[in-house]
């Protein structure tokens, strides 16, 4: 038994080695040196200076809250767009196959090009403004606006396909019968959606929310070119520091950003595993 067990562990180790080993070496090493660097002065002595800078300066503190804002808002917007879109995609309609290929296109568009698109379409005095000018309308400020609407729009543009893809699949995984059962038990379309579809698709949806939150919180090209110049997220400030060659500061900011993402991730894990744990307890009783 123990030989078999050992054999199995060995097998597991062998299987894990290529992927995990690769990442450990080519990703873990530089990451570790960055982590160490974030605690060092240029001459190598230990310091918390770089972290202190982040948590004491007005601009970086605002950067932190801006990061969270830019992480959250696009997710909320994409969610309100993705859920109805997933519901529509469930139906059969003309050209559905082509559509489900095309709507995923933004997945492949780099952030900087998305920013460029926002400028081209929404810039003040740009296309829409000119289009609306003859009828006396002007577009609200969407590029460089104080609320970062342009950033949120661009972020959502990039995330909606990702979310829709995941939510569509989450909905598709719910057996039709369960929905029909709810209907025949007197639940209207809306109630079926609220009490059956949504709870059952929740694991997929929360995972999508989490990943898009992390993605948009650390994206820098979009807020850099369409965000307001005053409130800049940590990711943008980090690139600024990179340009000055202050790597230690870059490392520290990167660590803070990553730490934040990891905390959110762990919170998610502990939440979901608690739920899993509870139900297992129920099984024993």
């Amino acid at each position, binding site marked *: 038994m123990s030989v078999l067990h050992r054999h199995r562990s060995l097998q597991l180790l062998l299987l894990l080695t290529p992927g995990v080993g690769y990442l450990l070496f080519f990703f873990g090493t530089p*990451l570790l040196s*960055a982590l160490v660097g974030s605690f060092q002065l240029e001459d190598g002595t230990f310091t918390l200076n770089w972290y202190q800078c982040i948590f004491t300066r007005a601009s970086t503190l605002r950067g932190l809250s801006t990061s969270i804002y830019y992480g959250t808002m696009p997710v909320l917007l994409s969610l309100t767009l993705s859920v109805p879109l997933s519901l529509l995609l469930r139906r*059969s309609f003309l050209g559905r196959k082509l559509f489900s290929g095309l709507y995923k296109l933004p997945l492949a*568009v780099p952030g900087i090009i998305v920013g460029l698109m926002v400028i081209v379409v929404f810039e003040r005095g740009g296309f829409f403004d000119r289009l609306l000018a003859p009828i006396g309308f002007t577009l609200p400020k969407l590029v460089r606006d104080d609320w970062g609407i342009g950033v949120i729009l661009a972020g959502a*543009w990039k995330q909606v396909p990702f979310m829709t893809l995941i939510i569509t699949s989450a909905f598709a995984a719910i057996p039709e019968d369960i929905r029909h059962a709810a209907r025949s038990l007197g639940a209207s379309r809306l109630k079926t959606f609220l009490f059956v579809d949504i709870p059952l698709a929740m694991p997929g949806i929360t995972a999508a929310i989490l990943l898009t939150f992390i993605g948009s919180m650390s994206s820098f090209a979009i807020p850099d070119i369409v965000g307001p110049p005053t409130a800049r997220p940590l990711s943008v400030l980090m690139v600024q520091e990179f340009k000055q060659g202050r790597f230690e500061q870059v490392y520290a900011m990167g660590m803070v950003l990553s730490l934040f993402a990891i905390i959110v991730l762990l919170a998610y894990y502990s939440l979901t595993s608690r739920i899993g744990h509870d139900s297992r307890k129920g099984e024993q009783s």
Partner: protein
Amino acid sequence: MTLLAIDSREAPRRRLFKAEDRPLVSAGLYLALALCIALPLTLMFLWSVADGWQPPSIFPQSFTTSRWIHILGDENLVAALLTSLFIAFTVTILTALIAMPTAWAMGRFPFRLKRLVEIFILAPVIIPGLVVAVGVGKVFLLLGLAYSVAGVIIVQIVGTLPLMIRLMSATFETIPDELIHAARSLGAGTASIVLHVILPLSVPGLLAGGLMSFIGSFEEFDKSFIVGAPVIQTLPIKLYMYLDPYSMQLPLAAIVSFILLLPALIVFIIAGRIMRDDLMAAGMGKI
């Protein structure tokens, strides 16, 4: 509108979607697609050929192809394109090869610390690339991998590996145990099981992961530049300069965007029809 009203008077209830609504639904969705994707692309294209586009003109006053000719006329562009394609293909294949065993373990073995390994595999997605790029550059200089195609390939795989592992482990999870037992009972060895059972069944996952890896590699800039430039010129290395946000000239940036996006566009239109969404979702959305 009137038609609708009559309709609803006759029937006490109107289903949200009838067969007759399908053209309406598809018209609506395609309109949204046109507004959200086609319109920005069209405007970008107009910028790339506009020769002066000042208010209040809704369309450019006159056109020029000289900028396109200038950028496309760069004799090194084709070479960069070929380098990019070669690197992207190699990265895709190597990513798949490296990912497979690990994905198999992640998809089919229960083990302690699995969550931890999962998070670690996800880490390159979470940690800002900039933080790693510089460190990688230093390591590669020491290893003598700087300015080599091999170096660029290795560094890009760091970015493409996580998604591939996740997609493949989602794929492997769906292969029934019975199938492998059956194959084994029919006398197949490990190698032929992999070749004749597992590989054919993982084609959808490979397709999805390969697609994302290819595009990821094709558009990667930060790490490739620090490791490869100027000896290795990929398309983004050649063109990203035009996208510098602080001195960006819209017309040139628009052309560059098109050159970078075109392959992705083509791949998505082709692959969109054969790609399995559920798998893609399982790989990307599951944490």
